[in-house]
């Protein structure tokens, strides 16, 4: 019961607009948006931030954030962010990309942004499918997982093995901060938020390329309830995509918390 001596301890962050997202019920894209917005608020950097939207379910992310945004071609967000960052080195530039966007068509762009040590932050939402186009196999689809383009389950003999993006990018000298998190429960959500803050802090301190991979749900295309989708993240995805800090370069260490 709301009484007079109660105060708000949680409400919609300023960095989010009032617009209701187009995401499916229970889709954790929404959670990740909120976390980024909270961090922008808390760090007070909303006004100096420029986001780069991908092609994917999160293509409309710019409708939900009260900051400048560019909408990139499919997979090319890191290139677009590079262009933006190079001409606005004092601004905070981040991309928000799905696994199809980043780990398939955008492979070259993300690898070379990391290789260049491009001083941008990448929030990489791994939901193991192409959400927007209706649930096809993604580079991150688990072996044996059924999707609309691997109808009998991903056959690694024919379709190959999933890409582990954080492990891969951790190889790049230019990468300063590369971690994997998940948003399947409140504890992990809070850890993810810390990582997002770390990534942006690394950027603010010119320490190099930062990427937070976030395991996320796609109840619609997984054909599950929102709750079962979180269970799937925990039980199926986590073992294959272990959470952890894959790279914290010396340059980044002092800007990292937790």
């Amino acid at each position, binding site marked *: 019961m709301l009484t007079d001596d109660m105060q*708000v301890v949680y409400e919609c962050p300023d960095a989010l607009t009032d617009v209701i997202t187009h995401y499916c019920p229970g889709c954790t894209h929404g959670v990740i948006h909120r976390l980024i917005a909270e961090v922008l608020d808390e760090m007070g950097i909303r006004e100096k931030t420029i986001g780069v939207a991908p092609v994917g379910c999160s293509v409309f992310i710019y409708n939900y954030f009260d900051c400048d945004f560019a909408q990139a071609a499919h997979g090319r967000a890191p290139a677009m962010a590079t262009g933006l960052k190079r001409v606005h080195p004092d601004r905070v530039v981040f991309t928000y990309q799905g696994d199809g966007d980043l780990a398939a068509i955008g492979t070259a762009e993300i690898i070379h942004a990391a290789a260049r040590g491009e001083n941008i932050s990448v929030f990489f939402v791994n939901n193991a499918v192409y959400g927007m186009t209706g649930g096809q196999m993604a580079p991150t689809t688990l072996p044996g997982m059924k999707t609309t383009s691997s109808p009998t389950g991903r056959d690694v003999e024919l379709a190959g093995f999933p890409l582990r993006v954080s492990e891969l990018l951790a190889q790049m000298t230019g990468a300063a901060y590369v971690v994997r998190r998940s948003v399947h429960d*409140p504890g992990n959500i809070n850890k993810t938020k810390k990582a997002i803050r770390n990534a942006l802090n690394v950027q603010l301190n010119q320490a190099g390329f930062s990427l937070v991979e976030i395991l996320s749900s796609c109840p619609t295309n997984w054909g599950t309830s929102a709750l079962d989708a979180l269970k799937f993240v925990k039980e199926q995805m986590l073992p294959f995509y272990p959470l952890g800090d894959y790279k914290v370069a010396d340059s980044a260490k002092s800007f990292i918390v937790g």
Partner: protein
Amino acid sequence: MARGTITIDEKRCKGCELCTSVCPKNLIQMATYFSARGYRPAILVDPHAQCTGCMLCSTICPDVAITVYREMKSRKAQLVAA
């Protein structure tokens, strides 16, 4: 134990049920009616004012539908609100 409460914005809630699964007091249920957008919204059912304002529900809500309130007696709560 702090006392708190939440409000759920029916316009924003998409009825995903995630919040129901995390409330340690089991205070959130799904409505039986449909909202204007066609979802069964979540509702707080807290007759005994058990909500602590722990923010677990708002933490997991993908649609920023939940606002959390807490009684501002303790210093700690004030800090969190800052």
